[in-house]
């Protein structure tokens, strides 16, 4: 029962985000950067479903455009982070021991930084913008995927079928890609889904601090930060962006939990 609820709620929320993502490629998003200084801070109306912001821009258009960026940045960052993490973890797992020590200590070093701090530092070094925030968030996704791959490879390294494959003369690369990776997939996918939630939140935080997506482009964090300047006079301004951000994070978290229960945790369940 609880499990199903997580699935449906998660699917529902992620579905909304996906819908917004698709809408952002329709003409509905075209108004996101059009200013109308005579019509600022207007409330919801048939013309502007969520009203307009401090420059008279349509908030709904900005929301769906933000959803596009948030989705692309998070997906890109997690994919990149997962790929690099898996490669590093595999090298550490099957490579010579000095290399494995080197890589894993480096990963420990990365883990020692709080994620958002690391991302901020990278943005300062690389500069602001969409591409660099993808890289920054990806870097802080690397350790968890690397550690996961590494531990799973160590676990499987001495299994009989791996030894058998070795005795037939199969190379390390083939063993990892053909015999180990398929078995790790469920765990990695679970991690991927829950990492999405973290990536969305991090992207939001970076943009809120002015380090992510730059104006005039739209981003949920940026919209929240702009709304904050006007919250005394127009308190409702931040609500749409805040809600969508919450829905995206909650949706991916719930979905991640469900997949986790289904593929991994399911074995230990009491009922």
């Amino acid at each position, binding site marked *: 029962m609880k499990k199903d609820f997580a699935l449906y709620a998660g699917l529902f929320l992620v579905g909304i985000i996906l819908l917004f993502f698709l809408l952002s490629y329709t003409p509905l998003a075209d108004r996101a*950067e059009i*200013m109308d200084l005579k019509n600022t801070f207007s409330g919801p109306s048939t013309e502007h479903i969520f009203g307009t912001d401090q420059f008279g821009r349509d908030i709904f258009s900005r929301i769906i455009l933000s959803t596009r960026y948030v989705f692309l940045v998070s997906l890109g960052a997690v994919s990149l982070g997962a790929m690099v993490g898996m490669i590093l973890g595999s090298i550490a797992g099957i490579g010579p021991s000095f290399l494995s020590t080197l890589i894993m200590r480096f990963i420990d070093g990365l883990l020692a930084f709080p994620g958002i701090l690391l991302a901020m530092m990278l943005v300062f070094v690389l500069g602001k913008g969409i591409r660099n925030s993808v890289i920054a968030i990806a870097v802080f996704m690397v350790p968890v995927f690397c550690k996961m791959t590494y531990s799973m490879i160590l676990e499987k390294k001495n299994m009989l079928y791996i030894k058998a494959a070795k005795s037939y003369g199969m190379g390390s690369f083939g063993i990892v890609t053909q015999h180990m990776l398929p078995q790790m997939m469920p765990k990695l996918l679970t991690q991927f889904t829950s990492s999405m939630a973290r990536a969305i939140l991090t992207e939001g935080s970076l943009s809120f601090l002015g380090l992510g997506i730059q104006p*005039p482009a739209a981003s949920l964090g940026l919209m929240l930060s702009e709304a904050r300047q006007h919250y005394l006079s127009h308190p409702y301004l931040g609500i749409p962006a805040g809600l969508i951000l919450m829905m995206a994070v909650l949706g991916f978290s719930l979905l991640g939990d469900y997949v986790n229960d289904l593929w991994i945790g399911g074995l230990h369940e009491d009922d």
Partner: protein
Amino acid sequence: MKRKKIMIILMLFALALSSCSAPKQKGSDTSLLRMAKSVDPDGLDPQRSVAESTFEITSVIYDTLLEVQEDGSLLPGIAQSYSLSDDGLHLSFVIKEGLRFHNDKVLDAEAVKNSFLRLKEEESPRAKDYANFTSINVLSDKEVEFILAQPDVGVLTLFGYPWSAIVEVSAENLRSKPMGSGAYKLDEWIPQQHITLEAFDGSYRDAKIPKVKIFMIPDTSAQITSLEKGELDLIEIPAESIGKIDTDKANILRFPRNGIQLMAMNSANAYLAQKEVREAIAYAINIPDIKEAVWNGVGIPIGSHYPAGVKGYVDLTGKYPYDPQKSEAILKELDLYGKVKLRMMLPKSYPEYVATGQIIANQLEQVGFVVDQEIIEWAAWLSDVYNGRDYDLTIIGHTGRLEPYALLAKYLSDGSENYFNYVNPQLDDLLHLVKTEQDPLQREEMYREIQELLAEEIPAIYLQTPERIIVTSKALKGYRDFPVIITDLRDLYFE
């Protein structure tokens, strides 16, 4: 257990209530002036601070040799008279009779000298402004003389700024126990809560209201509510709050500030070095709309690098009115439509400049410019934009001084503060002339020429002079506003 919880909750409530130390006195006590400030002063020693919040209060407690008037001119303060020698190197003041500090010590020529020696000390942030005085001599009890290393047309203004206040140097801990000779003396200062002042009867011009209480209330909305409820008499509010004031309950007073807001254009950029491109930019920007959207319609339009309301100001607005078609036509004629890419750097600490920049960027893109906005930290703005001059466009405000030259010297071709990278020999000549010209009428004429030149050449887009908005209770009268950070409470009275 449950009772304990309730007790704890009640205690927390009590604590929360007791910490709300909003002004409680209501009604019409005409012997007490109640004001609110949003920031605590950074100490009450005018010679050891650069904070506006300090000068707003120290200017009430201390006196200066000369008093700044509303239009920026100077009248004698502590000094009865002054004289400047023909070569401009000897400046002497005669001090008024019978002046005393709040601790009853005599304020004579010696005290003035000691105060300025303290201002010239290393710990003083303004020391370098006074470095031109090589020595200070006491000629008699009442007469003190300043020797200048070289002539300076703005020398008198140095004696009107709030940091040139005469302090009692032997008093201990001026930071928290200010000792001046002003019309009010400090009664009590509880940081983050309030400051109370009492009228001092030994001043050369007495205050009309015997007691002043200044509350620290960071939140503007709370200040407005208190004022409208009759718990405060005088507050200052930001432009965006002007719509919240109920004019049946309070008076709104608006004064031009001594400053300007502009969009600087870096002439090191090959496009921006062309006057035609700058013109296209000027025609593309709808300043009245920006003023409405960002500043709630508060602000005075300007056409040049000179604050409205300051002596010698010439109204040069309307030289480049909003005309996007013309702007687009210029760009197309130069074959630059869609080709001019500009980097706009906006200082994050000033949300209104960021908002202005965003609107301008939008307006420029509509006529065929490409603008990349970057919002940067204040420290980065100072180092990269102002000192490093690595930018194309930026929005910023400049605070004026009493002598306009200090503001205009930014345009000297080889000036260290010429972050416009603007070079114009004609302007250089005028600036060099005005610096040494002693005749005020001649100077005013030169300032007029400079303003006209800048308005024509537009090395920057001049947006507006900001306004100070003071809100008072209906009964309070006599408020005066000055082009420097000075509060003068002496003339205030209740009707």
